[in-house]
């Protein structure tokens, strides 16, 4: 199979991680899908970027994150929660620098967090056993999931509308001068970009709210999702 594009930072990180896992005494293995526990509504399976087995035959699944300044995204938080119900499997996120928000959100989700240092060794920042009681967060997580669907619908509608505008602006301006035509086209592209950036920002905030366990945070975000992009366009 040809692999799709992978972030070059992640490719370099993958090589260093393989050495660090080996140095830690774990046996690297081919990545194999691990089914979610019964009752899980998540689609797919636990795969990770790397997998290894320890002396007790416990499978360690590693997800590599070259950028670590944002909260743990919800898809990884969901996996961390699900893995807690799978016997003999542990899930870790690996970064090269640790941010407070990532550490906090990993702890809240039950994801282990490893920092790969300059010497190619892992420092355990959050161990899997350190996770807070996830059960109390289920209600917040469900609310965040519902809000995320709302965000996606809003985003889809607006992005589709801008794409339609783009198609019609290209047609409608075909007879205009180059500079005038480009001005209209770029304006629609800018509007589209604003919605995309807003979507990314709101998604990161939802990730953080899911980990915070606070219904107040979710309510505040709901207002922002309802408002959408506030500036003109």
């Amino acid at each position, binding site marked *: 199979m040809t692999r799709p594009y992978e972030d*070059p930072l992640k490719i370099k990180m993958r090589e260093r991680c393989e050495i660090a896992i080996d140095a830690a005494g774990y046996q690297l293995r081919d990545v194999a899908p691990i089914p979610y526990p019964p009752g899980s509504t998540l689609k*797919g399976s636990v795969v990770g970027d790397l997998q290894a087995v320890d002396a007790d035959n416990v499978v360690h699944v590693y997800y590599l994150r070259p*950028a670590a300044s944002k909260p743990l995204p919800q898809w990884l938080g969901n996996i961390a929660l699900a893995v807690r119900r799978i016997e003999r499997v542990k899930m870790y996120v690996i970064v090269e620098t640790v941010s407070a928000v990532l550490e906090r959100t990993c702890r809240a989700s039950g994801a282990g967090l490893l920092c790969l240092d300059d010497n190619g060794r892992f420092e355990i920042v959050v161990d899997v056993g350190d996770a807070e009681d996830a059960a109390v967060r289920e209600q917040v997580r469900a609310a965040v999931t519902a809000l995320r669907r709302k965000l996606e619908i809003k985003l889809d509608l607006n992005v589709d509308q801008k794409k339609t505008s*783009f198609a019609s602006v290209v047609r409608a301006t075909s007879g205009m001068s*180059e500079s005038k035509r480009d001005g209209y086209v*770029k304006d629609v592209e800018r509007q589209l*970009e604003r919605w995309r950036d807003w979507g*990314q920002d709101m*998604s990161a905030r939802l990730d953080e709210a899911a980990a915070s366990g606070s219904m107040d945070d979710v309510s505040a975000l709901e207002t922002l999702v309802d408002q959408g992009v506030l500036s003109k366009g």
Partner: protein
Amino acid sequence: MADVGTTTSIRPDQLKKNPNNPRRFFNDERLDLLRTSLQEVGVLVPLIVYEDPSEDDKFVLMDGERRWLSALQLGMETIPVNVIEAPGPLQNLLRMFNIHAVREDWPLVSIALSLGEVSKLANESRESRLAEMTGLTRSTVRRSKRLLQLPQRELELIQTEAHLDRAQQVHREDLYLEIQAAESLLRNEFPEIGRAYRRAHVIRQFARKREEGRLRAVTEFRDLSKLVKTVRANLVPRRKAIRALRRMIDDVDVTPSAVFEEIAAGAYRQQELSKKVSAITELLRGLDARAALDPSVKSALRRLLGELMRVLGVPK
């Protein structure tokens, strides 16, 4: 074998990258929203694929690389696909441009590389025609073509950083557009420089200034165009300009702004002043002497008069 025009499900590992797909540069973080959505609700919008004519039971991706990438990371067993007829290479490329009407994920370097292919396959180099075929603006077509004229090494440097956020990029597309414009200007204006240095060398030396953190902004190269104007107006001796420019090419620490400030800034400012004074003089000539002037205009003109008397040394 899947029927053309049908929606079906295939394993993600049955998919191959499109050979004519412009190289896409994904910022890993920007896929997080999509991954969460796919994990929670699944892939609802089918990917567009066609059967691989060279390998049984394989499909080539036409649209949906982000969904494919996410499905693989999420360990999905199958994904829905719409199977279309295998297109010809030109059709394939144009369809990509049309599918991604707004090329939100395509950095200029990707657009440029694809456009180069379109141009070759369609045997078409006219800007207007390429813009019509692809839906790109003419200025994007022009900028892409300029980017394609860069030495291969520099193009590769741009590509290796294209997945990074703009703030993290050293070898930015706009840097090279500025460098190329500056290099071309110097080569046309001063054939002596063209004879002394290879084009690729000058571009490399200019890029090094950015790599070494010597530039305040990528637009600093525009100072060279101002310098050229002063040489054309005989305000700065040509030989002096060439000496300074050669120093700038040879020494990575010497910036375009430093050269401009050193030999041409004073003359350039006077040249600009002269143009502006001419424009003001024309405007003043057009004023009716009997017309009542707005107080704010009167006050501005008085201030101008005061400054003129000061600069010309006229006693009050």
